[in-house]
């Protein structure tokens, strides 16, 4: 088993118990999704105030809701097209909230350079999901690129807990740019390369 596989398996055990509890209480997955967003807004507020450890704790809680909503929907047989759409939109809301919090923090500190790094990271984070959604309207699947939402969330938490948010922002920015261009290139090839079409 790989190192990251082991980490995933370790966190899966407590999450399994929380999913079982939500299923027993028959909590609607859309409610879980929305609760996660509200908690993420609180995390963004903590980031804006520069309270990184508090933000990390709140983000961890928010992302539990974020992670389990789809699983609870599956187990309660409440999966729906609207649920998928709602989840995607709320995910963007959560993502952008955290970036807005950091933008506020760096602007109050008078750090225009990091306001720009955060703004660019926000731009390419939005483009990461947009390129995939748009690509999958013309090709079957477009899942290339490293920096997807789970990676971004974990990086945000690492940055908050260890007070290394600036380095995390650089990683998110560089790998999000790479992901966006990878998706553009992949879609172009899927539409033009006979080898990929066959």
């Amino acid at each position, binding site marked *: *088993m*790989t*190192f*990251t*596989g082991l980490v*995933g398996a370790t966190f899966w055990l407590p999450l399994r118990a929380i999913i079982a509890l939500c299923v027993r209480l028959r909590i609607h997955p859309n409610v879980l999704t929305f609760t996660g967003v509200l908690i993420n807004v609180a995390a963004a507020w903590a980031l804006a105030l*520069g309270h*990184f450890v508090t933000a990390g704790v709140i983000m961890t809680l928010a992302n539990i809701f974020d992670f389990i909503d789809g699983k609870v929907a599956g187990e309660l047989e409440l999966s729906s097209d609207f649920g998928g759409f709602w989840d995607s939109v709320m995910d963007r809301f959560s993502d952008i909230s955290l970036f807005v919090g950091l933008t506020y*923090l*760096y602007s109050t*500190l008078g*750090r225009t*350079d*990091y306001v720009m790094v955060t703004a660019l990271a926000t731009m390419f984070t939005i483009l990461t999901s947009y390129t995939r959604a748009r690509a999958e309207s013309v090709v079957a699947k477009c899942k*290339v*690129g*490293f920096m997807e939402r*789970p990676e971004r969330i974990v*990086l945000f938490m*690492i*940055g908050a807990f*260890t*007070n*290394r*948010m*600036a*380095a*995390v922002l*650089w*990683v998110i920015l560089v790998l999000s740019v*790479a*992901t966006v*261009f*990878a998706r553009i*290139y*992949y879609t172009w090839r899927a539409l*033009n*390369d006979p*080898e990929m079409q066959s």
Partner: protein
Amino acid sequence: MIRPERDLPMPFRAVWHALYWTFERATWQYDIMVILILAFVWLTPPDWIGDPMAHGQGPIGWVIGLVNHP
């Protein structure tokens, strides 16, 4: 048509695969990428990247200081 994943020589092909990422999570390639990212985040001295919230030289700076002033 040029296909970088097989036409590029090493080490350019490795860089290509890191940027044009096609591997699944929990693979050895994913592990390496995660280790490289964590090394950058935790080892880069905050002062080098002008971190507005963290200061100091970090582990790398400490090692450099030790080498320069043993």
